């Protein structure tokens, strides 16, 4: 059976990953969770997911590095950046690379769902096309 994923979550904090997975799966989305940038780039979900949610603070290459790498691999992929601490440097990188949304931690269930749906709806056609 070939697996399909809608959302790729990259966060080294298991409780955050699991919380996002629970909320989004309840909403009917397939969620893949990885803990760092290297695993994310090697994950099969990257091929056809409709959304990536990336934490800024990651072990090894940072979320901002991953942001640029993802841009190269999937220029069309909308990315939601998550962080608990927005610095001017982060803001600059975000402006440069462009992200679909910015989610400040800690967020609640409705904020998460609203942002994800908003992003998926605005890029929905592309996403649907990618799905076989």
């Amino acid at each position, binding site marked *: 059976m070939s697996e399909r994923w809608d959302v790729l979550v990259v966060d080294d904090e298991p*409780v955050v990953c699991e919380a996002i997975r629970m*909320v989004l799966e309840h909403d009917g989305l397939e969620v893949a969770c990885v803990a760092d940038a290297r695993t994310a780039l090697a994950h099969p979900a990257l091929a056809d997911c409709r959304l990536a949610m990336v934490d800024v603070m990651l072990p090894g290459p940072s979320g901002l590095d991953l942001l640029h790498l993802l841009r190269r691999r999937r220029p069309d992929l909308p990315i939601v950046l998550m962080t*608990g601490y927005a610095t001017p440097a982060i803001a600059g990188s975000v402006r440069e690379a462009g992200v679909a949304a910015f989610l400040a931690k800690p967020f609640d269930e409705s904020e998460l769902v609203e942002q994800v749906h908003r992003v998926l709806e605005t890029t929905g056609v592309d996403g649907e096309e990618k799905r076989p």
Partner: protein
Amino acid sequence: MRLRIGVLSIVGVAAVTAAVIGGMSVLIVRAHRAALLAQLSRGADQLCETIAGSTYYDMLENHRERLHRQILTIGRQPGIERVRLFNATGTIRFSSDEAEIGRALDKKAEACDACHAAGQPLQRLSRGQRTRIFRAADGRRMLGMIRPIHNEVRCWSAPCHVHPRGESVLGVLDVNLSLAEADRQIAGDQRQLLLLAVIAIAASSLLLWWMSRRLILRPVEALIAGTRKVAEGDLHTTIPAGARHEFGDVARAFNDMIRRLGEAQRQLTQADKLASVGRLAAGVAHEINNPLTGVLTYASFLHKRTRDQPEIARDLEVIVRETKRCRDIVRGLLDFARQTPPQRQATDLNAVVRRAVAVVMNQLVIDRVALSFELAADLRPVPADANQIQQVIMNLILNAADAVGKEGGTIRVRTREVAVPPHGHAVIRVARCPKGCDLLDPSVRIGGHPGIRISRKHDDQDAVVHLDPVYGRVNHRASAPAPQGVLATHACPQCGAGLEVPDHSCGACGGPVFAVLTENKGRVEWCSRQGCHRSRWAAMDACGPQSMAELAVEDTGHGIAEEDLDHLFEPFFTTKGHRGMGLGLAVTWGIVEGHGGSIEVQTQLGGGTRFTVRLPVAPAAAVPDAAGGEGARGAA
């Protein structure tokens, strides 16, 4: 063992005094004794001559009975112990002590010693040689005087009996006088001298004790006590510095040192606070936000799914609400630590006020606070970050509500547009000396802004002055006062370059002026005369008044104490005890500054407080940037 200076010096001085007075006493007693003895021996000599003269004929005519009686009579006189006459062979022939008549004296006896010490009698002896001092058998001291009776013609030619012609000395008259009286006198003198010496030693020791106590010990004790207090961390301690001698100088130097140390420590503490809150906030955000995300997401997810079970839903609602409160606290810290540049858009200040009030209304109703508005309808939009300004308004209203207290009161929020002249409002944000040294001193803030640090000199008196960075305002701080009217010179405290402007003069008093340079708004001049508060910033004056949107939040609360005003905008300064973190006004100040605006507080203890925020009304592009620009308006 610890020795005290006072004790050591007293012992030293007592020893020296004792040695000097003791030596003097010995010399005096010795001289006195010599004089007494000389006087006594003179008297004894005269007595000898008198006896010899009065008994001359008795001896010559051989009236032995009369001679005997005479000697007995003389020997009974007071002070005379004994008178005797012995012949050339040493046999006592006559004596006032009849018991010894006929006894023979050894040539080694003390009375014969003067002549016979050398082995043979001397013909002529001086008085000193004839005098001797000895102890009688009962131990009393005696002075003896001998007088040889020489042979002469009438002696060896007399018919009575014959003294051979060849004999030179026929006999010796020996008079013994008691030294008891003289010894008593000398002993009395010694006693007197000893008493005087003891009094002198005691008096000088007492004087020294008093002086060392007053001049040395007390100041030293005060210094030690002061040093201990400082060691315990009390940097407000001072020691008495009234004395005009060296210890006064030491005390003044000590007080000055501690004052400077205190200032340095306060500045360090302030800088440290700011640095640590930044680190703390970043650390807390990283560590707390991830678990908070988990709690908040799960709780809100569950809350949504349990709406049909009101009991559980209510509990989950509490969890969600309290977690969000945690989030707000962390964000408050971050807002302060981060000081993000505002995202400015044309903003309707009145709308922001209404939004802010809507958020805090619940709290105001609980506190029974009456809120009234006076919002100017014709207010032009201000280029501002609506979220940040909303935070400012919320902070001010909640502070006002706290000031009003639970008993209820009134808060008035007013907006209007005002024309603000540069004089009294424009802030000097860049100040340099002619050689380019940065004169702004963030450690000394006046009205929240860094003071302009310069050095001042008049009549050889130096002082460090922090000029009020608000143009036209005179809340200068000086390390030492200067008399009114005196002309001072001013210099850069770093490179020493003079700040006086030679070709300019004060518009009010005509005196010389000094100036600092701003980035691109020319120079700001102040009059060099103390007490003449004229200052001039030509470039800003040329710009004329600037339109500002003014927001005032007034309360009828307890007011702010004078001593708290200086610290009001400092991070972690709070008068609310455990209820506040002391970040609200610090964040507020940072946001208003970031907008190139100003914040002013007017207060009366017990009579309420008014915070006035002014924001420039101008296209966003024309607003000077807070980080690099200067000349932003406002009455800080």
